[in-house]
């Protein structure tokens, strides 16, 4: 069971990385337009 001494800090680091990504996403405006981007991907570029 001693593996948890490595796993738990590892999990926390991974989690912190996720939080970091979340902060970055907010800062760069990834959540600014929740409606437009969702449908933009469904629209063809050349018709």
């Amino acid at each position, binding site marked *: 069971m001693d593996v*948890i001494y490595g796993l738990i800090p590892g999990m926390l680091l991974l*989690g912190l990385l996720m939080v970091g990504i*979340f902060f970055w996403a907010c800062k760069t405006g990834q959540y*600014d337009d929740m*409606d*437009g981007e969702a*449908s933009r991907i469904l629209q063809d570029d050349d018709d």
Partner: protein
Amino acid sequence: MNRTASHCYHCHQIVPKQLAVTAEINEQQQLFCCSGCVAVCQTIHVSGLESFYQHIPNVDSLSPPAQNDLTDLESFDLESVQADFVIENDETKQAILLIEGIHCSACVWLIERALNKMPGVQQAIVNLTQKRLKVVWLKNQCVLSDIILQCRQLGYDALPYQSSTALDQYNQSKSNLLYRLGFAGFTMMNLLWISIALYSGADQGEYRYFLQWIAMALATPTLLYSGWPFLSGAYRSIKQGYAGMDVPIAIGALATYLYSAYITLSQSQTGEVYFDTVVNFIFVILIGRYLESVSKYKAVNATQRLLDLQPKIANVIEQNGEIVVKPVKALVLGEVVRIKPGEKIPVDGCVVDGMTEVDESMLTGETNLVGKIIKDDVFAGTLNGAGSIDVKVNGLLTKTVLGKIIQLVESAQMTKAPIQCTTDKIVPWFVLITLSLSMMTFIYWSSVGFESALLAAVSVLIITCPCAFGLATPMSIAVASGVASVHGILIKNGAVFEQLSSIKNIVFDKTGTLTQGKIEVKEMVLVDDCDYSQETLLKWLATLESRSEHPVANAILNELKKQSLELEANISGFDYFPGQGVAGVIDGQSVMAGQIQWLRNKKINIDSLLENKAEKYQEQGYSSLFLAVNENIVALFVLFDPLKSDAKSTINTLKKMGFNISLLSGDRYSTVQSVAIQLGGLEAFAEVLPQQKYQIIQQFQQSQKTVIMVGDGINDAPALIMADIGIAIGSGTDISIESADIVLTHDKLEQIIQSIELSRQCLRTIHQNIIISILYNIIMVPLAMMAFVTPLVAAITMPISSLLVIMNASRLRIKKGKN
């Protein structure tokens, strides 16, 4: 997509045959509702973007494009105008434009595609949520006015956007809360399974300290970072000597945290840690705070957007008669500005030359065009009709009527005292009792020893942890709001729900709220021994009116449709006199229609009997339109703004429920009085200016009465905020909807009664919940004071109390579901 013949090819709205416009699209004749739609559709096809119509998710969502001004855009290319909003690089320029008229992702597609096809445009990205366009273009290949022109040709109005500090601040605090929420979410999820490990036996073995340390490592930054708003809020409110909801939250969180930290640091063998409780608690409450800040941001955004959409430039007539384009910011009071047909009026002012009709609906909610002649006042933000006028400036930017209303809205938002809900009233007592009980416990047990005294005192604080108490109101309101939204009632500020049933005064706005805001023909009175039949006269009048775009014209045309008559084709020499009347020659007869004063000036013979009748109708609140054929008055058309179908029954029910109802309107006294009488006699405030509406609500409040305000126009916005509860009718303007606490989306007045009934049930549930949490405390606190609460008991009873409250609240949904 099936576009039938009786629907507009572009916007798919139903087109009356006689009003339809035809145009050739792809070598086929198509029907359109207006020339605006034709122009937009042709632009779309010429640009090769016709697959736009396949992208529209819901055909009904399109509406005819606004009548955009396509000339004089060059002024946007002036350095002085661009200085405020354009970022200049070596070869490119970048600007953010506000786009009006976007409804769906197909619009985004259309604008981006059309702009990217323009030579010189490097990047065009539309943000659908914020309705903004970011555009980058090459300086030497294209100009901003071309970009704006392209948007307008597609039927979207585009105006430069400048960020405002107030809005930025709200945005800042909103995203700040989101960061804190995100972090708390991360620690909460990790702590959950650490506590599962601890509860399921790990607290006995070798990993006990390791897991406790990890839990503390997670909880500490959560308390300090995510919990900071509560800690600082509690500190502020204690400093002001008032115990708000932040105080018990902070005390609960801090006490639980410090106790757990003590257990961890002292490496005690028996104590339990409750870091998970701290973090969960902070996370759940942060969600509520975040949602609250989102709705606040939206409200400020709507107000700001209104200001942003105001024209930024004006055509100034210089002393020497030359017309110069200037930014509105650079204007001075007393200068004369020319306003062209179809332009939005950029300033408040007094007409010095010309005549026109102005659409003031965005200010007053009144759909009738208002005639303007020399010496009349015009207001910034309203839309000029068919005439060109010169206006002497007497108000600019924030000093205009519109600016003042927006200021009123903002200041009312700030000064309005927060609603005291039941829990708010109990919280100070709750805090006081909890603190003194835990103090008593500490003093009592201190004879046994400092450590056990501290533990007992803290366990009192933990056990009273205001979870159940804090959830009592929000849970009930959340469930009730959910039930309400199913019925089309949106509760923006949940706390008002609790209040709704206790208020006894309701003030209704008249136009657009109780009445439909659309004119109809009530009656047609002919002179005695008239040479023409009623049908002929109606046909003639409709033919004349169909040439003008006045709302009265719509009323007449609808009447024509009701009687299933057709327009007369044979018309010549049409003339339109804004605010006064129309004239023309039909079937060789000279026909005129308009106000009596105007006809008298035109030397028409007036029938005194008809004039008397008109006066009588006017006393009852109807307006009148006279029709003259060959210089003789032949008919009187009685026009009125009909009540909404459920207005009378709603008012009656509300009266029976014991409400005191008043009517508020900017209209003439006789009109308002007649509506009040039709509704069975109400107290009526007539001829109230927009600013005064707000004052009337204040008068109520100064005499210690609480008020519900129901309204729809921008002019109602300050009153909606000032009132204890503002209810906006869904068909209203953005700003009134943002100012209100409750929005009725189905445009039905009956929903007011529904809301009140639901709020009564909600209040009952809140009271039950408070009783449950008090009962829980009455049982558990004495046990804690006696130091009988073992960690296991605490771990079981604390969630049970919260669960009870949540389950009781969800009964609200079941109960309502049965009805």
